[in-house]
């Protein structure tokens, strides 16, 4: 299927840009005829992936860059790619296990939310190079009214 629309965002890795990332992706995704519930789920997923990039990838350094690429194809397939050039993940299998976290103060639920609210998740990572989280979800065509 060919790409219908896309937008790429480059954010500074600042904590106050996480909510900005959520809003911007949600604004793009609302081009699809999706429900408010679905939009909330997308926001959560983006929040988790972007927080991970800042917290784990960049270890809270706020002057690095988080890249988000969002696209929709002709088949209403949404793809969200969140990319950082941070420390990378040494063991992806382990990282994706529910409640696993390398940080004792955190819940280890980020990847679990991403898996649950998206149809597909793919993680590419190289220690020292960075991480790319690819998330996909299919939306039905014309599933609801515009000004509902």
């Amino acid at each position, binding site marked *: 299927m060919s790409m219908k629309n896309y937008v790429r965002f480059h954010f500074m890795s600042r904590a106050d840009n996480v909510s900005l990332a959520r809003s911007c992706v949600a604004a793009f995704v609302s081009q699809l005829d999706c429900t408010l519930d679905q939009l909330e789920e997308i926001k959560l997923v983006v929040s988790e992936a972007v927080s991970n990039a*800042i917290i784990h990838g960049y270890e809270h350094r706020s002057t690095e860059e988080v890249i988000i690429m969002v696209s929709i194809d002709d088949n209403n397939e949404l793809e969200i790619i969140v990319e950082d050039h941070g420390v990378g993940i040494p063991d992806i299998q382990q990282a994706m296990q529910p409640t696993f976290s390398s940080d004792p103060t955190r*819940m280890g639920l980020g990847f679990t939310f991403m898996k649950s609210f998206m149809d597909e998740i793919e993680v590419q990572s190289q220690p020292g190079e960075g991480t790319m989280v690819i998330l996909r979800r299919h939306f039905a065509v014309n599933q609801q009214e515009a000004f509902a």
Partner: protein
Amino acid sequence: MEGKNPLCVEILSDDLRKGDFYVELEFKQVRNTLIVRVRGEIDMLVSEKMRKEIDKKVEENEIANLIMNLEKVNFIDSSGLGVIIGRYKKINASGGRMCIVGANPSIQKILVFSGINKLVPLYNTEQEVVQF
């Protein structure tokens, strides 16, 4: 957790301002119960400050029980859930009780999904808590 006619001993208020934290906390103390009314979005930006603010109020005022009012919260992610679980662990360890009130359906979904509701019961209103 508190009597029928809640006697308001102290009202403390704290604004974590937009551009700073995007969240607002309002504290109300009724005997040894602290009510925290949260307004905004609870994510990594605000979770650390929230944790500190709540813990400070709990220690300073010899609080036993904690009610988190999420009525005005329109977003929470796993960073926010971490604040709740962390407060629950502390309160529970010292023999107190904690609950959440007023979470909207989409926040409730996240709380149930993560299993937090099994540790921290959910109520609709602050009034309802009186009976538990």
